[in-house]
């Protein structure tokens, strides 16, 4: 923004206007995100040290200012409660396990899909990308719901298997962990494919030619050149699937059963059914703590993407 018009007269007002516009450009997104993204986390942290009461809002104040004295009442009870009750530990473990398996499945299906798309003719690439992305533009809720009709005891898949004679009695597929993993893979697959595709399409094909000229077998070239060079895309895609999947509520609620323990669902029930806001907040803080490393990994990659050729 260096070159300024060389006018003798209204320089001062011009400078002021530039400064004003500049601070708007910086200020608006900054203040909005500070107020509506960062500050709320501070509040979650604060409420997690409170205790539940029958009132509106249903928690006790943490910072008190009575008779000119300022006091802070920190209640670690919620965190102790989370550790002591095996339900919560099991829910955290269950979420991480299910999210991990689903991420792995997404990677195993998504990588070849991204690879084939990146190697297709340019005209076709656009069509394929559109086909891959389009499901994620329709309703998430409805795509999860679609599996309820397919996996149910009276559902399409059971009827098909019975008709083929592969099974004698309907298999219980809905309301199991299997259904939850399938739902996550189905809903999040496009988010795995896209970053890997973006990475593979930029890959310098001369490297592959050089490797093959030097006598490397295609499979060897893939393992030693293509795969390591697409590491960034793999990490970004995996984080885009893994992190939201850990906190997923809709999929375990609709496709999971009574034995499906996932932390997003537990938090939802703690908040809406038990109206225990402090415990729900403590659950959120611990979840955030567990996801901190994956979030930092994702942020590193994304920041590099945002800043490239900047």
């Amino acid at each position, binding site marked *: 923004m260096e070159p300024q018009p060389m006018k003798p007269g209204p320089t001062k007002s011009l400078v002021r206007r530039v400064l004003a516009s500049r601070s708007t450009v*910086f200020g608006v997104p900054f203040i909005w995100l500070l107020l509506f993204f960062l500050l709320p986390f501070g509040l979650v942290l604060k409420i997690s040290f409170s205790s539940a009461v029958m009132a509106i809002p249903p928690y006790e104040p943490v910072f008190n200012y009575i008779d000119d004295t300022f006091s802070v009442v920190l209640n670690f009870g919620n965190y102790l409660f989370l550790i002591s009750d095996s339900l919560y530990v099991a829910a955290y473990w269950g979420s991480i396990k299910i999210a991990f398996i689903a991420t792995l499945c997404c990677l195993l299906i998504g990588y070849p899909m991204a690879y084939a798309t990146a*190697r297709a003719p340019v005209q076709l690439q656009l069509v*394929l990308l559109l086909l891959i992305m389009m499901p994620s533009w*329709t309703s998430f809720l*409805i795509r999860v719901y679609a599996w309820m009709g397919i996996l149910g005891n009276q559902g399409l898949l059971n009827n098909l298997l019975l008709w083929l004679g592969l099974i004698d009695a309907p298999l219980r597929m809905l309301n199991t962990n299997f259904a939850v993993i399938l739902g996550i893979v189905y809903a999040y697959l496009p988010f795995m494919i896209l970053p890997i595709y973006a990475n593979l399409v930029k890959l310098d094909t001369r490297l592959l030619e050089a490797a093959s000229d030097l006598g490397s077998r295609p499979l060897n070239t893939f393992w030693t050149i293509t795969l390591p060079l697409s590491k960034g895309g793999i990490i970004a895609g995996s984080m885009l699937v893994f*992190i939201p999947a850990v906190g997923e509520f809709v999929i375990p609620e609709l496709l999971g059963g009574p034995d499906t323990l996932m932390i997003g669902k537990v938090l939802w029930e703690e908040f809406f059914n038990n109206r225990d806001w402090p415990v729900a907040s403590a659950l959120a803080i611990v979840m955030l703590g567990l996801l901190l490393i994956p979030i930092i990994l994702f942020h590193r990659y994304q920041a590099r993407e*945002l*800043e490239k050729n900047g």
Partner: protein
Amino acid sequence: MVRAKSVSFSRVVLVIGLLFLYLPMFVLVVYSFNASRLVSVWAGFSTEWYGALLQDQQLLSAVWMSLRIAFYSASMAVCIGTLASFVMTRFQHFRGRTMLSSMITAPLVMPEVITGLSLLLLFVQMAQLIGWPQDRGMATIWIAHTTFCSAYVAVVVSARLREVDRSIEEAAMDLGATPLKTFFIITIPMIAPALVSGWLLAFTLSLDDLVIASFVSGPGATTLPMVVFSSVRLGVSPKINALATIIIVTVSIVAFIAWYLVQRSEEKRRQPLPESS
């Protein structure tokens, strides 16, 4: 030989993967025309569920509510997301850069239950301190959706901002345009396609959100996903199949138009420039 084999393996997975993505939606479309209430029985072709859908006042008002919220959220998210990505791509060194970049990227992966809970606590606190919002509803959902949609807009727009030729901006400023004027006359038209796709993405994200809206909404505001969710929780319903079909068809048409427009502009770009004599 081996090369051909490995390529065909990924192609096979691509085809199977696409089938996996589209078969469940195809099933929904087919069963929305089923005369029977049950999923497992095909009782002939019928459009009665579409009729039932149009009679459902609760659903229709939820659709209207969702469309309005999505429109306002997408518009605001485009403003904030564009400003944020402009700052990130055009200014390399300023205080708070790391903080801004993490606040832009974090909402992309943040679990929805955490975002929803944290925003609700903010609104409750704000109501206590400054008396607003007294009752939660459209305005609070609008703020919540704008916040997480801005992140997606920022990703789409900054990809485009990095591509545009900055010498045009510099030329405009050399010729005396103020940075603000340059931004509106030069930069905005150059990134217009990204603004449109960012807006559309934000619109669909807002229209689709259940979890965050459930946290921050009050008794007055019921969005479409909330109505769908409370119905779907009880089991499969042919009315929801009909709704799903309408959504799928609408998105397909919009996607087709987008593909056609991109295709045409690509063809134009590939044509050689007319020679100037």
